[in-house]
């Protein structure tokens, strides 16, 4: 087991990792930018090192300074969290060459799954259902036109090096295809460094259902209860829940087995997530694989009682997977709301500000993952997430009631937040019935306003 772990991240996820390490008796090193020098994660860790000024590319993305920090503190492993360097193949490679364990899968897996087009190919080969579309990247517009006629409109043009909903365009008809491909290519080049794009059939009103998988070095892989992340705005998740109201035990087994098949095909180790699109007919298609711990991991932790961060660290240290598929139980319903410093009345405009005072919700079945403290300033350098509010209830109705109660208890002075927006969703009739898809926000919440 590792003696000392350096956390190459900040905010709530850095705290989460430090907490898991502390409970496991592992020493921790926090790295921080100058802007984060008073952050909680620097205070909770055993040691902390300043690695650069505020801007991310000079600090949290500064590979030499981060590796150097691991060397001078004697850290034998680095946990990259999510975002930043979590899916950076080069960083994983540098860790390896410096004899520091990168807590995640191998660099080959990260590279393969990071290329969305290659990932699709690998899944097709493994017999995992994929969305009808191009075999690989589209070299010419004519190929795109031919394929689109075959799979029928509407289609989606997607960046091969993209992900998380970035670098994609929905095309309704042939006239718009050429422009969409060219725009997507130039956007992709600017944002991800590669202008390669591929084509997929557009699945209307899909649900986004993902499966957490865990794997050890011996090839043992299991899946955990699914997460439904359909409540999204501009492809960014806002609310997640487990289990999905649209998945019964039969479908869960089918999708779960497909997720394990996908992970086994690439010899996946530690923790990861397979994302599927689930259509109205109960057909599901592989969308992408995330090779990191995800923001919404607490929802799964509450529902089945597995500490995902501890599992991730154990599996990265080479331990055997000590969980059996048929022993995994679902203990109720969990919902997570991502509370961001954004003004929901102004198109979710990010708000700057200092949190002067706050009251966190509590009571039974309520969990808060946050890095805020009195006087915390929302930094312009990083994302606007304030906290993750997660609840668990005996059933979905209780979970919703609990989330409504908790949102009502949450007080935040000094910044505008998305708390009122989440309360609106919880009160929405369609949401309460479990009838949601990825167009939910657009159709139900924005149209009502």
């Amino acid at each position, binding site marked *: 087991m590792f003696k000392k772990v350096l956390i190459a991240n900040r905010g709530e996820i850095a705290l989460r990792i430090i907490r898991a390490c502390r409970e496991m008796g592992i020493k921790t090193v926090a790295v921080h930018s100058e802007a984060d020098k008073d952050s909680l994660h620097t205070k909770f860790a055993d040691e902390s090192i300043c690695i650069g000024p505020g801007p991310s590319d000079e600090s949290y993305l500064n590979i030499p300074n981060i590796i*150097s920090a691991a060397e001078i503190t004697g850290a034998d492993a680095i946990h990259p969290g999510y975002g930043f360097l979590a899916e950076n193949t080069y960083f994983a490679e540098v860790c390896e060459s410096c004899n520091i364990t990168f807590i995640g899968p191998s660099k080959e897996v990260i590279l393969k799954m990071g290329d969305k087009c290659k990932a699709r190919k690998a899944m097709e080969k493994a017999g995992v259902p994929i969305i009808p579309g191009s075999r690989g990247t589209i070299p010419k517009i004519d190929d795109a036109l031919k394929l689109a006629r075959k799979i029928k409109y509407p289609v989606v043009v997607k960046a091969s090096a993209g992900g998380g909903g970035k670098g994609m365009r929905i095309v309704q008809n042939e006239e718009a295809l050429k422009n969409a491909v060219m725009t997507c290519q130039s956007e992709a080049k600017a944002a991800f460094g590669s202008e390669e794009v591929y084509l997929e059939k557009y699945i209307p009103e899909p649900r986004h259902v993902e499966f957490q998988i865990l794997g050890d070095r011996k090839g043992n892989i299991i899946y955990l209860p699914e997460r439904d992340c359909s409540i999204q705005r501009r492809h960014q998740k806002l609310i997640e829940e487990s289990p999905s109201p649209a998945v019964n035990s039969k479908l869960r087994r089918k999708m779960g087995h497909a997720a394990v098949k996908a992970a086994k095909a690439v010899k996946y180790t530690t923790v990861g997530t397979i994302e599927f699109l689930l259509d109205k007919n109960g057909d599901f298609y592989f969308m992408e694989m995330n090779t990191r711990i995800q923001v919404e991991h607490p929802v799964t932790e509450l529902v089945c009682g597995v500490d995902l961060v501890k599992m991730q660290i154990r599996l990265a240290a080479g331990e055997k997977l000590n969980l059996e598929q048929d022993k995994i139980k679902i203990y109720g319903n969990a919902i997570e709301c991502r509370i961001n410093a954004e003004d929901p009345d102004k198109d979710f405009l990010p708000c700057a500000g200092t949190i002067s005072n706050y009251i966190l919700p509590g009571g039974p079945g309520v969990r808060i993952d946050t890095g805020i403290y009195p006087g915390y300033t929302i930094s312009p350098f990083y994302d606007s997430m304030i906290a993750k509010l997660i609840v668990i209830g005996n059933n979905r109705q209780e979970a919703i009631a609990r989330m409504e109660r908790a949102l009502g208890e949450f007080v935040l002075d000094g910044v505008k937040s998305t708390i009122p927006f989440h309360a609106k969703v919880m009160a929405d009739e369609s949401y309460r019935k479990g009838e949601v898809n990825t167009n939910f926000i657009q159709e139900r919440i924005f149209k009502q306003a």
Partner: protein
Amino acid sequence: MVKKKSKHHSNKKIETKELLQIKEFVNLIKDADIMELLWEKDGTKISFKRGLGNPEEEKRLVNRESDTSEGQSETPQPGLETKTDISQMIGEEGRPLPEKYKTIKSSMVGTFYSSPAEDQPPLVKVKDIIKPGQKICVIEAMKIMREISADKGGRVVKILVENGHPVEYGQDMFLIDPYYEEEVPKVARKRHK
């Protein structure tokens, strides 16, 4: 109409001028690293001698609370817990450091070395006058030794990191009196006269 100044009034004026000069000297010696100064002009002598302060109170370092000694590898590395906190440093005679003192900070994370190799002398010593761009130390990171150049000039008052100790981004490494860098050209000009 110009008022004639009385003799008494002009005597008072001279005294005030001398007092101002004495005050200026006191300020000069207060800020500079001078132990004794003797000024002599037209039969007037002024002697200044700095009193010796308590050597134990001369400087104070702030230690970080840390128990990094447990669970470490066989050769324990010196940690950042011994890094110097400038705000807590006390100068001579127990007074705080002059505000004009500046620091040269690290722009990297790594291990600080005062010379490029073990058998070589330090690149810079206390009391050296350094120029911007001058190589002042080496920081080792990821097995590469990088020579660090000064971003400001002046006289080295104190070296704040021990040889072989780790440094983080933004950590103060050298305490500089920038006054001396401006002084040198003036003296040189005077000599040419």
